[in-house]
């Protein structure tokens, strides 16, 4: 039973790995290249590589393998485009600004500008920032996936916030 579970070559285990990590991987690739189709093609390529090497990769190393493969493939992709984002549909219940139409308008404006600012962030800050904000990854996970130190993640997060604040100031 145990060797079956540990073996990525097992088709059902491989499927579980896909279901668990495909979306995070696709988002990560998207944050970096800014093209949805390209990111999804790269996801396919990463998993095909994992399948070919399934005998060498235990289940617990699968995620690391996928992100490393994604990183390597990404180095070959030249175009860094802006990403397209949107806000979640659910509104926060404690939004006190909604009562005042004027405030609400300002709020919506702010959100649009923030979204655009994020979309146009430099690629390496953007990837780290969104992996944390959208995918809810911890700094440690991000560090592992990008093969960098946690300190480097902290720096990129710091620079991302500085960058965003500056961008918002410039436009207003």
């Amino acid at each position, binding site marked *: 039973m145990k060797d079956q579970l540990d073996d990525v070559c097992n088709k059902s285990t491989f499927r579980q790995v896909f279901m668990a990590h495909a*979306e995070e991987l*696709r988002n990560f690739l998207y944050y970096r290249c800014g093209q949805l189709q390209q990111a999804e093609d790269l996801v*396919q390529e990463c*998993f095909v590589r994992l*399948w070919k090497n399934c005998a060498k990769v235990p289940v617990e190393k699968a995620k690391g393998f996928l992100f490393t493969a994604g990183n390597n493939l990404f180095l070959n992709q030249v175009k860094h485009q802006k990403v397209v984002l*949107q806000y979640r549909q659910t509104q926060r219940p404690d939004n006190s600004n909604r009562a005042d139409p004027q405030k609400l308008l300002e709020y919506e404006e702010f959100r649009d500008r923030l979204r655009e600012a994020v979309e146009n962030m430099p690629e390496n800050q953007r990837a780290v920032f969104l992996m944390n904000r959208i995918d809810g990854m911890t700094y440690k996970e991000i560090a592992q996936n990008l093969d960098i130190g946690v300190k480097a993640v902290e*720096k990129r997060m710091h620079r991302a916030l500085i960058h965003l604040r500056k961008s918002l100031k410039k436009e207003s």
Partner: protein
Amino acid sequence: MSTYENDDTFLGRWLNGELTEAERMAFEQTAEFEEFKTIADEAKELTVKPYDKGMGWSELSDKTGGKVKRMMPWRVIAATLLLLISATFVWYITGRQTVETLAGQKQLVSLPDGSTALLNGQSELSYNSRFWSSGRSLQLSGEAFFEVNEGSEFKVNTEIGAVEVLGTSFNVYSRKTSFEVYCQTGRVVVSVDNERVEAILSAEEATRYNSDTDKLEDLNEASGPAWQIGENRYKSQPIGRVIQDLSAQFGFVFDVDFIDRDRPYTGLFLHADPDQALEMVFEPMGIAYVRNGNAVRLFVEE
């Protein structure tokens, strides 16, 4: 103290709840704090187009469909090994050959390397044809004349003793308690009881095992066994031995209770005619016989 302006990990640590209490308190007093907090909180509401995992999986399944590169699990390896061993075992066992002759029947047996064994009547020869070239070993009961091609050790095992050669021709006689070897050409090593008693024979030498003295004695039988040409020759051999050979040749069952089986006999009998053979052996010895089919009763003439 660290602030977001002089420490380039400050905001990163703040977002991860890693600031010291003092750092956090000081930061929360700054005018920029609210701005950063709004940015961080609102950014958390961002999302990307969801990934269609079902579609992704079916696309991936097409690409990974047939090429399963599984490492062979140990069970498959073990099963394969077991099958291989069993197959080898069966192959070896089925290599076992046995040739048996009836009374009066002579049969030439060709061995895998082209050596031959001519089997005399009422004899049995068995050997394994597998791995023949690496060790030529045979089991004999009865009598046979071997012509051995050059090669690895050639060994004939019998109930009493063994004969080892490299390349030669020789006769082995091993019936009941008798064990005799005649070497026609080359050299042979004759041994009894796991090489405890040994004798080396050169061309045209013969030896017989004497169980009383536990020795291999020289036999002055320079002409060699004549059974191959259809006769048995004896020079001062016990009549019991001749009776034994008549049985092997003609399938007789003798009743020997009334005669002395140690009396020496010199002479011969021919294989062509059983009645003539009986006459040739017993007439000169003064032994009377009554033959009824295969049963032959012997008694001393009054």
